[in-house]
């Protein structure tokens, strides 16, 4: 009897501890984001106040108004940056996903010479810090005349993302039993149909998550984009954030407002794709 109570007590305190740990972890993750959002609505005086003002006294849309306003009055070509970001991120993601699907499928299903070496090679490219590539990339892009173009950045992001999408999609296709495609072939499919009608739908959670990761990488990337873009013709939103810094001041409020605009599409996309991310799609098709 006493024992049972002790166990219950222990279980309950463990649960409490768990919740506390979860709260702390989520705070660490969410607070900076919340701070950015808050600051975008607060007057600069309040943002810069020392000691800090924790509870906002006044919220307004001034920073947003200014950002969309004329260039001379703190305005930034937001729409231009947004379009650039969108074109570059979407195109590079689509390409990275297509290549990743082809590559991932090949690694998961086929045996070929040098398979392990190629795979390790691909993974090693992930070990190189992106910034280390900036100078060589700059030189290559300059020689080929791709500085300040969409294509230049798209190429860079595709090459950054492809190893990752291949690796992720490979893992998902490995979980799809070979028999599914074989059953489809016996049911009358060509190899191609078997892939699109059976294997792809079953592994689409993996493709979706690879897509999100690739998109977010391109969407948020700053270091390389800041080197390879020059003008509003190709500058992406993260690079656009720098427009708020001038020689002596930084317009934190404006920067936060642009950052919020940057976060929104990423949030929407994640929200849209998340239902495809639910794992366990392969469950039930074959005896587990």
């Amino acid at each position: 009897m006493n024992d049972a109570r002790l166990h219950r007590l222990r279980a309950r305190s463990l649960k409490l501890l768990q919740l506390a740990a979860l709260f702390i972890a989520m705070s660490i993750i969410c607070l900076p984001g919340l701070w950015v959002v808050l600051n975008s609505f607060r007057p600069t005086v309040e943002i810069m106040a020392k000691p800090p003002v924790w509870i906002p006294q006044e919220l307004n849309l001034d920073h947003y108004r200014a950002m969309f306003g004329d260039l001379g009055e703190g305005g930034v070509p937001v729409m231009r940056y947004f379009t650039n970001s969108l074109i570059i991120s979407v195109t590079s993601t689509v390409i990275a996903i297509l290549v990743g699907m082809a590559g991932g499928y090949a690694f998961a299903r086929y045996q070929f010479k040098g398979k392990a070496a190629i795979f390790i090679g691909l993974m090693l490219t992930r070990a190189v810090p992106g910034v280390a590539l900036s100078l060589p990339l700059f030189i290559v892009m300059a020689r080929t005349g791709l500085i300040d173009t969409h294509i230049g950045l798209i190429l860079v992001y595709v090459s950054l993302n492809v190893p990752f999408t291949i690796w992720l999609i490979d893992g998902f296709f490995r979980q799809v039993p070979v028999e599914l495609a074989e059953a489809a072939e016996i049911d009358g499919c060509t190899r191609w149909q078997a892939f699109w009608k059976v294997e792809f739908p079953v592994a689409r959670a993996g493709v979706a998550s690879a897509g999100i990761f690739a998109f977010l990488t391109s969407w948020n990337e700053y270091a390389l984009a800041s080197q390879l873009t020059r003008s509003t013709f190709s500058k992406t939103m993260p690079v656009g954030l720098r427009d708020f810094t001038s020689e002596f001041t930084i317009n934190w409020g404006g920067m936060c407002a642009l950052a919020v605009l940057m976060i929104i599409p990423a949030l929407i996309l994640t929200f849209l794709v998340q239902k495809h991310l639910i794992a366990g799609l392969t469950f039930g098709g074959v005896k587990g």
Partner: protein
Amino acid sequence: MAQVTLRTVVKKYGALQVVHGIDLDIDDSEFVVLVGPSGCGKSTTLRMIAGLEPISGGEIVIGDRVVNDLPPRHRNISMVFQNYALYPHMTVRENLGFSLKIAKRAQGEIDRAVDEAAEILSLTEYLDRKPGALSGGQRQRVAMGRAIVRHPDVFLFDEPLSNLDAKLRTQMRTEIKKLHQKVKSTIVYVTHDQVEAMTLADRIVIMRDGHIEQIGTPLEVFEAPTNTFVATFIGSPPMNLLEGRVAQDAVALANGITVPVPEAFRAHVTDGQEVILGVRADNLMPVGHAMPMEGAHAAFDMTVNLSEPLGTETLLFATLAGEEVQAKMLNPRPVASGEQLRFQLDLTRCHLFDAQSRQSLR
């Protein structure tokens, strides 16, 4: 409906040869079971018939077409996989109708075929579920339903029951047999379970190491195994094998025990020949607990080491000529280990194999 013919079919993976030129003629609407221990090439053979595995030599004919180079979809076959391989993202209805949809049949026709198959396999109430929401037996039936909707020439089964529990396995075995009687298609069925092979097959093909050891009806392979491998593989418990030497129309076993050479083998043995005597537990029974043995028989005393009561009979482990043998006791009574019993051996049902080649001497 079609015949299937294999002519010296070979399968190699690089230097490794797993199927060594097998020949097999399967009649129209015949139920043939390929059976053998794992690694014997039975599944590979089935996959070659299906077209999932290219053949390295020989010829496979389905109906009147050589299908060596045809992809699976042009062979008009269907296959039930060991792990069912149901499409997890489709409902049972979509799973069943998938092949017809790929063949671009009219929706009405697909619905009719699916309903009919669901009816046959009593799946009607599960049609809108996904495979994940089905039990093992139901998934198995969906896999079979997917195979029958297309009315293929040949059904291929790759160990379809090995993932089910014992009770369900027996039940599905009966259903497969009923299904065969209903649809009357040619069936090639792979299993490692000799009971499945015996109960289902019109003819059994016993394979080992990529060779066919024997082809015959269940009774043929049980009653006249061509070698010791078939003798021990078919039948449960496995046939007892005792080494001996022929001397004056008798087989002298170890420890001075002699057994007369069975009538059927008299003409095929010579004095001094090394042989193996094959005795099934069913033909070695304690006196008073045996089937009536009308033909020639022998009798001797054995000490029982262990008994396994099975209800209607008890399996006895005893020592004969220095070897442990298994015997059966009908109308059983409790037997203590160490008890000595007099056993009867039915000579008309004994087998003799050559000790070197291990082939039957019949």
